[in-house]
């Protein structure tokens, strides 16, 4: 064990009261690099290119300006002045670096028995994913403050941490002084509400650096967003197998963003971190791996299960979960995330097995002290009796009540174990999703001898429990929520500020009724330890499920989230209730309707009034439209958005997209929702004529009702554009639209998307987006002679679109390096994957639309698509394959020469020869790894040569010029043949390259 874990011997133990921070301190403002976030324990820091330090130093009130590598900070008399001075810096930043696409390795934290084998034999297996916001429930408003005082060559730092661990060494390294010159003092600002373990060391390092530069006492207040952690989440994926009420196997994997252990200021100034955390973790992992039983893992999983496996992504100590190696930890956030995932999962198992969740836990618990606490809490909460009595409320008829149980066992400060159990009771308004935690029964037992040194400022247990319960149900920040940095701290404002609880939404001021149980319950108020609230989130989530049947796997449990989940659940139930007979009848009815060659026109309606739809609906509609790529096809080159007129080449002739803005005459302004829905699901125009399946209603039929309504709202609320698209005139017999009735009968199934219960929610979300809105298969599946997508084994096996080849997304992919889920995500998110190339042609605008979606949805699509590919090889194997392809191409290059080689040298090498020349703005995509050069047909390579890539989805990728006007057909063909021979030497030469060049040059381009 490394000595940084214990307090440094030379460190004087100091406690609040000993030395309060000086009354007067200067305010600090530190610039946050744009796009700051953390990946694999390291920040993605944009390079600071320049800053006007003179202007900042001249700003009113400014005392000191520090610019060191990528760190830029200002010290001023007040926070307001510091912010103004920082603005005067006019910092210029390079674009933030992209995360390393290499997959993160996984470490085993605990293993017992053989979980993999148990899962294979298991009959009932559950796989679930839980997410926990690393920065807590209100990451934007909660702040953390540290004060640093530099005087006579010594540094004193006041910060809210009792176990500063490695921080002294880090501050000493940062300031280039001896560790003995650093004194850390425990103190917490009354205005702070953030998780101190997550932010205190970042605040302290900023304060220290600026205090030394200013030779003064400096106060630094930061929020999770300032440290790039506002959106970070911890993800637990849990698999379990059980038969009846007996659990056989349990496997859990921790992923997501790890709380950074090394202060941001060290990264920004590029100071080497003096303390390596890895060694400690290795030791920890080994004790478990050596197989000496469950003992160390009770902190990771308190239950007795024959087969256990617990992993964490990443290799460093901060991923270790319950272990707080140096007290800095993410330990508390990690413990909360772990308990939330584990206890939610146990509740899901109990529901699946139809057993009482409390007895399920007791059945798997060896720990007598924990079992006693659970029994006491259950008894005090009246758990064994009937459901809680119905109380009269003013909430109307749709109030649902439920209760949930959760248990936690953790190792607290000084390795003292603690036990806690919660029963939460909730009331939910089934219409609005409003949620109130009405009563909480808390039990807590701990071996920690005396209340910790922070108890003086800690709220009593009852208050803490109430606060925790309320925070869990607060809504997540809305788009118009301002970050804490927007309101600079001033003494006047702080005097008026009410305690943190008053900041909660007014609608949820009803505090729950708190009842205490457990070994410490006899005290009037418990000394609140954070461990006592560990089970809170799971208990509330389980109560919500008990009340509504809706499972929320990510806090906070806001009214918005709950309302959406309730609506989705209601839609699902309505379909199930119909029964097979009714469903058969409905199918028959829709079948009849589909065959009718003519459909009745639906009456025109007046467009909805402006402001008719709520902002939430319109926002949802915007995302639906982005996922559906409406604008990609319904916008003509250079034309107004969604006004139609784009020419789509099909084997049957040119189809022009229509105007879908709400213009009454030329657009869809008079379409009722019924007409819109019929068009989207059945391919019938409002006036009754049939739409060609170039409009992918075959896919859109799968869109959920709620999404379709939101899309309608969004489209109808857009600005109407008067624009008549050219008429689509196909050759005989395709101009006979009624024939499409027969086509639909053969090829169209009008059925909404049904999730596959055997698959994970992530997969189902991806399937919904990819099969329905995203209509991936419209381009990436082959079509038959009648232009219908082929399904089954042909699904996503490659197709074509607008003169481009849409490559196979399945195991048939020709990519020299197999696509992985991570590579797909990177590609779909940013338009470029290092081992594959960039999104060009019609895929570029698709990626551009996808940028509007949340990352989780793009992740879901990647996850779903990856499930069709062959299992991905190990990361080392992927690197080896890439290296092999590069080597092969280098060998081939040596044997090639002639005019085409010179053409390549002059036209392509400057940007594509990654090993040569200068680093440039944009990427240098490797051609040896490019999927298109390994494809069976040269179409995409020729298309890119002719059209270039004038508008990659992310401008940081650079751009590729068009060679249509500088190379003639013969040169393009020669170059294409050369590229094939050089970069895909193992593939046969392409056929008909000259004819393809001539054909593609003649075809109109999607975008100019």
């Amino acid at each position, binding site marked *: 064990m490394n000595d940084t874990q214990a307090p440094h011997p030379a460190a004087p133990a100091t406690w609040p009261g000993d030395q309060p921070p000086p009354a007067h301190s200067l305010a600090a403002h530190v610039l946050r690099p744009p796009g700051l976030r953390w990946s694999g324990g390291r920040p993605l820091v944009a390079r600071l290119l320049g800053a006007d330090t003179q202007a900042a130093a001249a700003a009113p009130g400014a005392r000191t300006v520090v610019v060191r590598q990528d760190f830029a900070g200002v010290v001023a008399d007040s926070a307001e002045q510091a912010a103004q001075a920082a603005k005067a810096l006019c910092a210029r930043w390079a674009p933030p670096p992209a995360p390393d696409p290499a997959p993160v390795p996984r470490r085993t934290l605990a293993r017992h028995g053989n979980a993999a084998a148990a899962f294979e034999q298991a009959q009932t297996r559950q796989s679930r994913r839980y997410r926990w916001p690393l920065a807590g429930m209100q990451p934007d408003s909660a702040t953390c403050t540290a004060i640093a005082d530099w005087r006579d060559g010594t540094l004193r730092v006041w910060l809210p941490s009792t176990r500063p661990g490695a921080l002294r060494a880090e501050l000493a390294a940062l300031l280039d002084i001896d560790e003995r010159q650093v004194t850390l003092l425990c103190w917490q600002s009354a205005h702070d509400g953030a998780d101190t373990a997550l932010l205190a060391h970042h605040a302290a390092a900023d304060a220290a650096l600026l205090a030394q530069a200013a030779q003064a006492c400096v106060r630094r207040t930061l929020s999770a967003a300032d440290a790039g952690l506002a959106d970070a989440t911890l993800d637990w994926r849990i698999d379990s197998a059980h038969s009846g009420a007996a659990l056989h196997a349990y496997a859990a994997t921790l992923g997501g963003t790890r709380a950074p252990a090394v202060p941001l200021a060290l990264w920004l100034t590029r100071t080497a971190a003096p303390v390596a955390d890895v060694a400690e973790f290795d030791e920890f992992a080994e004790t478990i791996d050596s197989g000496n039983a469950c003992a160390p893992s009770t902190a990771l999983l308190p239950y007795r299960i024959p087969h256990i496996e617990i992993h964490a992504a990443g290799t460093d100590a901060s991923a270790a979960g319950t272990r707080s190696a140096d007290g800095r930890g993410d330990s508390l956030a990690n413990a909360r995330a772990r308990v939330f995932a584990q206890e939610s999962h146990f509740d899901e198992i109990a529901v699946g097995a139809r057993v009482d969740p409390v007895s399920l836990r007791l059945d798997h618990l060896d720990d007598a002290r924990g079992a006693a606490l659970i029994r006491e809490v259950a008894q005090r909460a009246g758990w064994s009796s009937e459901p809680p009595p119905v109380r009269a409320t003013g909430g109307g008829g749709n109030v649902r009540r439920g209760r949930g149980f959760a248990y936690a066992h953790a190792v607290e400060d000084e390795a003292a174990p603690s036990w806690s159990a919660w029963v939460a009771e909730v009331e939910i308004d089934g219409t609005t999703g409003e949620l109130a935690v009405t009563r909480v029964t808390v039990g807590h037992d701990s071996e920690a001898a005396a209340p910790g040194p922070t108890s003086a400022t800690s709220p009593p247990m009852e208050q803490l429990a109430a606060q925790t319960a309320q925070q869990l149900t607060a809504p997540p920040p809305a788009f118009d929520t301002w970050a804490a940095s927007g309101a600079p701290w001033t003494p006047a404002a702080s005097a008026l500020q009410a305690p943190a609880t008053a900041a909660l939404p007014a609608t949820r001021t009803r505090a729950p009724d708190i009842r205490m149980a457990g070994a410490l319950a006899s005290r009037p108020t418990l000394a609140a330890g954070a461990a006592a609230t560990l089970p809170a989130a799971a208990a509330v989530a389980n109560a919500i499920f008990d009340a509504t049947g809706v499972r929320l796997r990510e806090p906070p449990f806001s009214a918005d989230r709950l309302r959406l989940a309730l609506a989705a659940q209601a839609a699902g139930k309505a379909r199930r209730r119909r029964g097979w007979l009714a469903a058969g009848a409905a199918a028959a009815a829709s079948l009849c309707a589909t065959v009718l060659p003519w459909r009745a026109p639906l009456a025109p309606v007046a467009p909805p009034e402006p402001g008719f739809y709520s902002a939430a609906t319109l926002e949802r509609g915007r995302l639906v439209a982005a996922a559906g790529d409406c604008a990609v096809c319904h916008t003509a080159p250079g034309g107004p958005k969604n006004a139609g007129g784009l020419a789509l080449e099909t084997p049957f002739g040119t189809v022009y997209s229509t105007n879908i803005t709400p213009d009454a005459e030329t657009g869809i302004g008079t379409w009722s929702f019924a007409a819109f829905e019929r068009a989207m699901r059945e391919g019938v125009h409002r006036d009754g004529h049939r739409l060609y399946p170039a409009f992918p209603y075959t896919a859109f039929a799968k869109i959920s009702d709620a999404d379709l309504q939101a899309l309608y709202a969004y489209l109808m609320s857009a600005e109407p554009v008067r624009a008549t698209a050219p008429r689509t005139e196909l050759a005989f017999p395709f101009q006979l639209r009624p024939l499409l009735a027969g086509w639909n009968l053969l090829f169209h199934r009008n059925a909404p998307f049904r999730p596959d219960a055997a698959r994970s929610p992530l997969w189902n979300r991806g399937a919904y987006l990819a099969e329905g809105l995203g209509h991936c298969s419209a381009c990436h599946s082959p079509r038959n002679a009648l232009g219908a997508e082929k399904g089954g084994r042909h699904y996503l096996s490659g197709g074509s679109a607008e003169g481009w080849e849409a490559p196979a997304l399945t195991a048939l992919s020709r990519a020299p390096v197999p696509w992985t889920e991570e590579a797909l995500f990177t590609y779909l998110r940013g338009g470029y994957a290092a081992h594959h190339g960039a999104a060009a042609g019609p895929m570029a605008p698709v990626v551009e639309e996808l940028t509007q979606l949340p990352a989780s949805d793009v992740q879901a699509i990647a996850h779903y698509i990856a499930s069709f590919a062959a299992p991905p090889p190990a990361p080392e194997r992927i690197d080896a394959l890439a290296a092999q392809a590069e080597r092969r191409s280098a060998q081939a290059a040596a044997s090639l020469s002639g005019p085409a080689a010179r053409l390549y040298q002059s036209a392509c090498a400057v940007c594509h020869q990654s090993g040569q020349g200068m680093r440039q703005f944009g990427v240098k995509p490797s051609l040896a790894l490019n999927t298109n050069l390994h494809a069976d047909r040269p179409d995409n390579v020729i298309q890119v040569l002719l059209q270039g890539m004038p508008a990659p989805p992310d*401008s940081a990728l650079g751009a590729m010029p068009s060679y249509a006007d500088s190379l003639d057909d013969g040169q393009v063909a020669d170059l294409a043949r050369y590229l094939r021979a050089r970069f895909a030497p193992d593939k046969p030469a392409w056929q008909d390259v000259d004819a393809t060049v001539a054909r593609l040059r003649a075809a109109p381009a999607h975008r100019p």
Partner: protein
Amino acid sequence: MNTPRPLTLDVNHAEHTLCVAPDTPLLYILRNDLACNGPKYGCGLGQCGACTVLVDGLAARACVLPVKAVLGRAVTTLEGLGTPQRPDPVQQAFIDEQAAQCGYCLNGMIMTAKALLADNPAPSEDEIREALRFNLCRCGTHVEIVRAVQRAALLQRRNEAGAQP
């Protein structure tokens, strides 16, 4: 959409708002609208390097880069390096070594060298040759250019050492 619209560019630490088509090559805007004639029009295909500018400190070929790609990024042209009175160390080195004949390629040579030295303050001769590999010069002043870059590295290091307290 390639219809002209107001775009704000950051060129040589100053903001310029111009009504231009977003797909226009950056070089045209720099030369025609902002009168920055340091970057030269050579081949117009990103091949000769005469048009090189710095985008966020990285070398970029302005003739093939659409102007929309540099929105929100800092563009530096030859004019942004130094003035005749106070030339940048790289410019000074090229003057000292008289590393030009016709001088058309010089903008690209200087800007690429500037980007190289930001990445690698002390490049070897091979590294200099490799970095300038795709900058074409028809007059054959390559030997002087390599010497100029070596001198620039020296000057820059000396300046930095002098600037520190």
